[in-house]
């Protein structure tokens, strides 16, 4: 496939994200990366499980966590996962505008999630004096949840950058893999969050 065909495909193939060698390589490479991310988050989860009782005389997880906020955050992130599925659905139908709209909704939901998380951290720090340095529990909590929040920031920046950069280009076989990979990353963020709300918050208030 020549470079011209990649940028101006006469007809979109069924799976534009895997139609070129570059796309296929990105796809395999990204799943490899996700396997590595799984291990990385596991080490943070393991650390959290080991240290969540070491409060150093400060607030315990039962005193800190409120489930209302976590429930709203979970719903926001879960819905944003569905909206990015919609975006990829429109990508495969070669409907660029609709894909951009759904990606925009995904980004908006992600920003909503992030605002709640920032509020949550602010609340813990100012009302409970629960910080990264106050106890081993604090260090483990902020490292795990903050690292996930960092992934949300990165994922949002990534999707926004792709949307802006390709706004006038439309869909082609060069950028379709990029959009697809970014949406995989976004789903993975939700995968990690499922374990965070289960292990950190639900088990934390039990």
């Amino acid at each position: 496939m020549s470079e011209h065909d990649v940028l101006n495909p006469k007809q979109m193939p069924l799976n534009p994200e895997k139609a070129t060698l570059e796309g296929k390589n990105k796809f395999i490479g990204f799943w490899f990366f996700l396997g590595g991310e799984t291990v990385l988050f596991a080490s943070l989860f393991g650390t959290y499980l080991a240290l969540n009782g070491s409060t150093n005389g400060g607030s315990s997880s039962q005193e800190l966590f409120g489930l209302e906020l976590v429930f709203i955050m979970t719903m926001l992130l879960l819905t944003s996962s569905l909206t990015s599925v919609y975006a990829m659905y429109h990508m495969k139908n070669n409907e660029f505008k609709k894909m951009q709209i759904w990606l925009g909704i995904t980004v908006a939901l992600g920003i909503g999630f992030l605002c709640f998380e920032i509020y949550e951290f602010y609340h813990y720090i100012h009302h409970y004096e629960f910080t990264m340095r106050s106890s081993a529990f604090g260090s483990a909590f902020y490292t795990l949840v903050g690292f996930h929040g960092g992934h949300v920031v990165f994922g949002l920046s990534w999707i926004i950058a792709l949307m802006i950069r390709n706004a006038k280009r439309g869909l082609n076989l060069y950028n379709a893999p990029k959009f697809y990979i970014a949406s995989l990353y976004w789903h993975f963020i939700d995968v990690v969050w499922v374990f965070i709300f289960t292990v950190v918050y639900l088990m934390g208030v039990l």
Partner: protein
Amino acid sequence: MAEKTSLHPAQLDYEKQKRKEEMKQQVITFALMIIFTIIAFSMVIAELNKLFVIPVIFVLAAVQVGFQLYYFMHMSHKGHEMPAFMLYGGVFAAFLTILALAALVWW
């Protein structure tokens, strides 16, 4: 994974219809994930027995992640043998990591 460069219009319609059906399934998957989340939260709020709640919310989380991987991230599609291998390799190492850290604390 070899793709034909030009497809018959009838086949294009068929593929489009197939994707539409799949999108409906995705929405059903999403509804199930919401229900699982609500069950997990309400079980904790209802303050049931800890030894019962913890395994159940773990199972709910695992199923929800399975949905996310196999439907939202399309691992149920063809050509995902290598991604599955990578991911399960990661999950295996993750399991060992958590097991080792938990064992160290328990000791």
